[in-house]
């Protein structure tokens, strides 16, 4: 049975000259798991919001959307709320109330459901999502991943027929992101709930979904199963953002079946004629320590537990050092101790150069109403730098109106005005799509050419593998393993890129898809 039927849908925002969606025709069957992909600004969010009456943007609309053969405008507010669930990108701001149980109850309360029904429904879904132990926790005390899971649970409580998700995992760290996607798949399997998800972090969702829709400039350019669509996307720009096994397959022009998971990727590789060793130089050009941390101990409260336990670290001049580690292992704390915001109770930090710091949320760098005013706070010679970063057109723009990538670039600009020698970056790629990430990586490389050293904290393994010179893993308050990027990822089994997982024991030293491709003969 079809649940959504979109007929000739076009849409134009009021102030914009061009169409955000062009003549979209789509039938969605009940129980399908659909993935929407496309570059930022291609209309993914617009399309999703059009399917949810309350969130539909204002503008010129033509064509019709039918939900269960009923025009979407004719749905009552209560019907739309309970049958069509919507999850937004930001896990934090979506939460309304102060306690987990009241958040779960929020939707049902709005629908006027009686207290006893709410009691049993919330209990049921708290158990399903593993919130039983957190039932009376403060929502503020949850981690980002738990918050997003709570948002999903508080929608599921209303027993929706469809869930629409707008980049739900882009702000989460990879482990939680995978968890979230698997939960979504489980919901889809257990209840037959239709899922339509827009996402650019494709590693798990791509292989789990039924169909992929590729939106390009407001147009459905391709629509097919994940295996089939891989080939269609081969020559598109989006092809570079597909999961590692698919990228590998697309570059190699093979007539075998397209691999989606690491396991299939390994099978695929074993059928090819390949060199079993990727020759790479493991030397690094950098020398001379610019920042050294010796035996650092830190805790937040007098009787609290130690976050850093005798941590030591050496950063060399002009390198990009990526510090990896799971959520809450003390990565951000370490940066704050190094930059002086927090005081370690034992240990030494030695550097005689200017440090600068970029926080996880680049918005926090800006305090004024225009980019220009903000830059002027630091120095008046900002024009040259801004033009170099391609931001000269945005002088009069409010910083918060910039896109994620632009905002990050502007933040780097502002920090560079303080003429730092060492740049500390906290989770620089949060919420970025692959293009923005690559852009950032290139900028970081150009900074090191100016002699600036970069210490970045991240859980983005692919990013670290592509751009860092050295990597370290922070675990249990200390650096447990450290090495030149290639060596680091080669030796790790779990904490490594999917390309390295595929190549393990088949090709030595290969940690990115490009490495593997170079080893394939013919």
């Amino acid at each position: 049975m079809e649940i959504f039927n979109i007929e000739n849908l076009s849409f134009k925002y009021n102030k914009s000259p061009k169409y955000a969606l062009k003549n979209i025709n789509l039938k969605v069957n009940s129980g399908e798991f659909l993935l929407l992909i496309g570059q930022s600004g291609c209309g993914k969010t617009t399309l999703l919001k059009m399917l949810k009456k309350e969130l539909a943007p204002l503008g010129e609309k033509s064509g019709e959307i039918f939900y269960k053969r009923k025009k979407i405008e004719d749905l009552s507010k209560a019907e739309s709320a309970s049958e069509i669930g919507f999850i937004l990108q930001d896990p934090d701001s979506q939460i309304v109330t102060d306690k987990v149980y009241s958040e779960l109850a929020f939707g049902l309360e709005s629908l006027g459901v009686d207290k006893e029904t709410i009691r049993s429904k919330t209990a049921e879904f708290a158990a399903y999502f593993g919130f039983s132990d957190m039932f009376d926790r403060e929502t503020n005390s949850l981690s980002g991943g738990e918050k997003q899971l709570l948002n999903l649970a508080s929608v599921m409580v209303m027993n929706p027929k469809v869930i629409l998700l707008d980049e739900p995992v882009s702000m989460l760290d990879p482990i939680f992101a995978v968890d979230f996607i698997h939960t979504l798949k489980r919901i889809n399997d257990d209840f037959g709930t239709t899922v339509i998800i827009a996402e650019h972090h494709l590693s798990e969702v791509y292989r789990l979904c039924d169909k992929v829709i590729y939106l390009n400039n407001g147009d459905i350019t391709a629509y097919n199963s994940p295996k089939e669509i891989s080939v269609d996307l081969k020559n598109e720009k989006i092809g570079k953002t597909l999961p590692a096994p698919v990228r590998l397959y697309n570059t190699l022009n093979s007539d075998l079946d397209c691999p989606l998971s690491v396991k299939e990727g390994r099978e695929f590789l074993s059928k090819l004629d390949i060199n079993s060793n990727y020759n790479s130089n493991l030397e690094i050009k950098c020398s001379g320590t610019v920042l050294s941390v010796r035996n650092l101990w830190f805790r937040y409260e007098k009787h609290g537990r130690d976050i850093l336990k005798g941590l030591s670290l050496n950063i060399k001049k002009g390198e990009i050092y990526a510090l990896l580690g799971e959520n809450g292992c003390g990565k951000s704390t370490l940066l704050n101790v190094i930059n002086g915001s927090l005081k370690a109770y034992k240990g030494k930090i030695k550097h005689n150069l200017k440090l600068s710091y970029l926080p996880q949320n680049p918005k926090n760098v800006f305090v004024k109403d225009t980019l220009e005013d903000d830059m002027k706070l630091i120095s008046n010679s900002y024009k040259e730098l801004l033009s170099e970063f391609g931001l000269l057109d945005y002088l009069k723009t409010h910083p918060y109106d910039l896109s994620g990538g632009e905002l990050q670039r502007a933040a780097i600009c502002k920090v560079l005005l303080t003429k730092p020698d060492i740049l500390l970056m906290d989770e620089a790629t949060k919420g970025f799509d692959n293009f923005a990430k690559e852009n950032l990586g290139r900028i970081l490389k150009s900074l090191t050419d100016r002699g600036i050293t970069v210490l970045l904290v991240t859980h983005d393994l692919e990013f670290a593998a592509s751009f860092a010179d050295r990597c370290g893993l922070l675990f249990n308050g200390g650096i447990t393993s450290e090495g030149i990027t290639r060596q680091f990822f080669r030796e790790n089994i779990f904490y490594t890129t999917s390309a390295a997982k595929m190549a393990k024991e088949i090709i030595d030293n290969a940690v990115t898809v490009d490495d593997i491709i170079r080893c394939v003969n013919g």
Partner: protein
Amino acid sequence: MNTLKNFNPIVLLIYFIYVLFISIFSFNPILLISGMLGAVLYCLVVSDKRSLLKSIAACIIILLAVTITNPLFSHNGKTVLFFINDNRVTLEAFVYGAVLGLCITEVILWFKCFNLVFDTERFIFLFGKISPKLALVLSMTLRFIPNFIKSFREINRTQKLISNKRRLKRYLNSFSAVITQAMENSIITSDSMNSRGYGSKKRTFYSRFRFTLSDAGFLIITSVLFVLSVVYKTDFTYYPELIFPSINFLEALGYLSFIILTFIPFIYELKEGIRWKYLISKI
């Protein structure tokens, strides 16, 4: 352990109103002392000793201050003790001051007990009984305030590292930034509320509290004790002469009722503690 919390918040609220009502309007030192004892013993069982000691110290200071200052301003009373600047300092004024001090400290201690029992969840429940929307606003505020403070700190910390502006200027800048961010986020929150049907129907209110048989029992017992202690109350006279009325059987019943009323939290806590120990010993 705080088992008193398990009663329905409305029943507990009524109980606290009973105790405070009698304490404030009786102005009877015996009742006030009994009330203080009841509150202190309850705090001793459920809260940490240090904060209790602090409160007691504060109470003693207030008590002394009020006892000493009252005779300086009130010169009524028959029994003159001495003169200061030709003003009479009377025994009655001292006693009245002491009772006033007792009254204030007793109310403070009972508010301490009130805080131990009424956390935010129970507050919201009480408001939810009046209006579900009010409860939602309260709950959203309780989430908003710590979030706001946290992001202010984060922005300010970042600004401190980047810009060399003076402290006040930096605080102002950070404050305006955090307000802008909060407004931006509130758009997302309202989207999330709308998409979950906010305003589509008359809101109901969910709380985890029920009205059980033991709540009814608690309500009945406390109400009976309250009525008894109000009906058979004894009035003290302070001015112009101290008159302590004699106590016969019915007045004694009134006193006893109030003493039991104020000791209920302590007794209940003790009983639950013993029951727990007994159960453990059986295992």
